[in-house]
């Protein structure tokens, strides 16, 4: 072993020790290695594999799955631009190009001096204060050309990110409408006390009575889930908080984690109380790294207040603590079984269901996976009871729902409404300017037009995980759908055929149409692909990956039509560009060395 390897080994040993040499924490370990060395090299991988007794291919498999983990070095300053459609609408591309010029780097390539690398990344959850970027994992909001210049200066002067101006990292809550959750003060421990006072059976009965449904999108009844996990056979039980808020246009969980963490953690403790879990895991998306330290601090406070730890509130046997796991750049990990795989240190490929996590979850044990918002709501039920809770919202959608409103509105931010609120009301409250469409529930959701603005947010009408992206009259809905198509191609886990290949073909067709080479033939292809992906894909990602395209074709066909070539066929590739390399090597530039695509 060479000296450098020995040195590397020592560093890695420190990281391994921090994680108790637990191969189940591989994603966390690899994150730390990436942060320390700017990559996870083949040498590092070999050492980790050996010391964790894992096949090296398994380590490689995990490393290569996550966007934030790289085999090759990134720049000392790794700058990633959030590329949601809302960032684009706020002009992120011009700022990107400006920065690339100033730093002398091109997309995805590290500068010659190794100082900087620049790339795009999937939505970072700052849609109400974009354009947003990540620098070495830390979120910077409200980017402008001026801020870009300042950053370039700091990079060139090699100022550590920790010493950059605080205001860059400011993340506002932008709460515009607070209702029963956001508008109510909360005393840590109060909900737990209430639950303990009534007893776990009675509290579970209240949760069931409230008819609360999961806020992550699927809308499964929370009480039923908890009861199933409690009744399932297992050696241990776990409560997992799904804070992997990756759906483009969603950012309400970020606000809850940052400004209401006591609610979230107490909700987890309530779930643990009911199901009998000793350990809770928060799966926090990698993009929210800036929240990790304050959340750890909050956990310490709660431990000190004996609201976490052994014999919580003096109840014998009510032992529960919480760990925070960081994601590493993979949208699919928002799917609960993929999330569990990731928690176990593996690539986030969704499992076959059934079995569901309630019976076979984290490390094969009964596991409750709840969305951040759902857990917050559990505190309300403990405090006020199920009947009270059921009094809000609609019959099938009780309580309130937090919406993340972004796009063409005067007041982007967080809006909490009782379920049943009309789309038009949200648009009015947010100050939408000539809205022509709303994309509900993100790239995987549905696109509504003016005619549908009278519809209601509720599981029985328009279900949503919370994203509410508004598009004004002048917006091009084709470009919206194209942005989503690329998002899905980038985020497909690759497990099943229709999604792995279909999302790529789909994005290719959208690019072809964008370049003016699409025809009616491509339009038909999109529809057909969508059907195959929808009906054959393994999980929701592939099943919904063609939805935005289908919706926008149905509702904004003119945005596609205006790009279509008026003929029945266009080549699949750019013929003239395909001759470029041969032109270059032969030095030819005669007429026969050129080719028109539509000759």
């Amino acid at each position, binding site marked *: 072993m060479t000296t450098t390897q020995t040195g590397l080994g020592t560093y890695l040993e420190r990281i391994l020790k921090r994680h108790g040499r637990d191969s189940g924490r591989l994603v966390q370990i690899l994150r730390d290695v990436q942060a320390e060395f700017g990559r996870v090299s083949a040498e590092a991988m070999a050492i980790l594999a050996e010391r964790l007794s894992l*096949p090296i*291919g398994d380590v490689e498999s995990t490393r290569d799955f996550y966007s934030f983990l790289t085999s090759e070095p990134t720049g000392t300053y790794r700058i990633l631009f959030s590329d949601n459609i809302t960032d684009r609408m706020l002009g992120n591309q011009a700022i990107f190009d400006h920065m690339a010029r100033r730093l002398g780097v091109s997309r995805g390539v590290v500068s010659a001096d190794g100082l900087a690398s620049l790339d795009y990344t999937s939505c970072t959850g700052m849609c109400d204060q974009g354009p947003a970027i990540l620098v070495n994992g830390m979120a910077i909001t409200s980017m402008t050309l001026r801020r870009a210049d300042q950053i370039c200066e700091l990079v060139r002067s090699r100022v550590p990110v920790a010493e950059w101006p605080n205001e860059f990292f400011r993340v506002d809550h932008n709460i515009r409408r607070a209702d029963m959750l956001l508008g109510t003060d909360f005393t840590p421990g109060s909900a737990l006390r209430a639950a303990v006072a009534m007893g776990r059976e009675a509290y579970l009965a209240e949760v069931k009575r409230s008819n609360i449904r999961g806020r992550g999108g699927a809308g499964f009844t929370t009480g039923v889930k908890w009861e199933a996990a409690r009744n399932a056979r297992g050696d241990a039980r776990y409560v997992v908080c799904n804070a992997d808020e990756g759906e483009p246009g969603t950012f309400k969980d970020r606000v809850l984690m940052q400004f209401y963490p006591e609610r979230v953690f107490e909700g987890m403790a309530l779930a643990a109380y009911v199901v009998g879990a000793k350990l809770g895991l928060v799966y926090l998306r990698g993009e929210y790294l800036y929240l990790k330290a304050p959340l750890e601090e909050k956990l310490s406070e709660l431990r000190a207040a004996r609201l976490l730890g052994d014999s919580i509130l003096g109840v014998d046997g009510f032992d529960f603590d919480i760990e925070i796991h960081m994601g590493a750049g993979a949208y699919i990990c928002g799917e609960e079984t993929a999330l569990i795989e990731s928690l176990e240190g593996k690539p986030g490929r969704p499992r*076959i269901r059934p079995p569901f996590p309630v019976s076979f979850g984290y490390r094969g044990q009964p596991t409750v996976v709840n969305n951040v918002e759902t857990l917050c709501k559990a505190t309300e039920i403990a405090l006020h009871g199920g009947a009270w809770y059921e009094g809000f919202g609609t019959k099938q959608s009780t309580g309130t729902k937090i919406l993340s409103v972004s796009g063409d509105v005067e007041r982007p931010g967080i809006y909490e409404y009782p379920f049943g609120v009309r789309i038009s009301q949200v648009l009015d409250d947010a100050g939408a300017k000539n809205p022509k469409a709303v994309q509900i529930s993100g790239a995987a959701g549905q696109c509504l037009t003016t005619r549908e603005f009278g519809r209601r947010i509720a599981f029985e009408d328009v279900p949503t995980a919370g994203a509410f992206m508004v598009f004004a009259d002048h917006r091009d809905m084709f470009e919206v759908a194209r942005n989503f198509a690329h998002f899905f*191609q980038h*985020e497909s886990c690759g497990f099943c055929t229709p999604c792995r*290949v279909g999302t790529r073909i789909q994005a290719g067709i959208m690019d072809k149409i964008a370049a003016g080479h699409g025809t009616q033939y491509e339009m038909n292809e999109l529809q057909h692909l969508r*059907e195959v992906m929808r009906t054959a894909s393994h999980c929701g990602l592939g099943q919904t990956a063609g939805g935005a395209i289908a919706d926008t074709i149905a509702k904004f066909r003119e945005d596609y039509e205006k790009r279509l070539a008026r003929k029945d066929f266009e080549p699949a*590739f750019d013929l003239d560009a395909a001759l470029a390399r041969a032109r270059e090597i032969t030095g030819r530039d005669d007429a026969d060395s050129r080719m028109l695509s539509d000759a």
Partner: protein
Amino acid sequence: MNEYDKFSLDGRPIYFERGQSILEAALAAGVYIPNLCHHPEFKPHGSCKLCTVKVNGRFGSACTIKAMPGQEVASDTPELNGNRRVLLQMLFVEGNHFCPGCEKSGNCKLQALAYDIEMLTPHYRHFYPVREIDATHPDVLLDFNRCIMCELCVRASRDVDGKSVFALAGRGTASHVVVNSPSGKLGDTDFALTDKAASVCPVGAILSKRVGFAVPIGERQYDVDPISAQASARQAEEA
């Protein structure tokens, strides 16, 4: 038939044992449902999606859905076969599948399914990916150009051979099978021709060296009878 239950597959009654998947029950009854990533000796995987059927009107993978009494299963329909053709076309354009030069031709499940479902063209724009060939092992050649990510080799090596020689790495269309050795080469593993993993590849990605076109054209596995007909013939033999 007391201990048996039955469901309906394209109108035919299929008797099954509790615990069987729809696919297992159908194959045992001699009724073919197209599949690529399925192997009777391994746990259901559900990634190729060729076995997608409609169960009581809902789409699902026949290999992962348990057979239940009274299910109405549709499989051999124009709609489902049309979608299967698209899935096959996706697999063909995703890799580099040049049958005339492949030793597996005639014995390849991907190709046999394409024949059976009458796929005449890969249809979509070819990706023409650049993939590796690994000839470092004395007895076995790996040609990843033909890999369809079914993970049968991954599962066989891990679950049967106990060697974990392969793993699926990457994400999306960058997914690829890697070899578990510091060099990433098969020659640096304890892989052996006698391993289960050496014989499960449904396509020509894992090939035995020094065996070339041993069976004459016309006598290969799928030259005479289509893959679907062989399932029922096999069952008839066993019965």
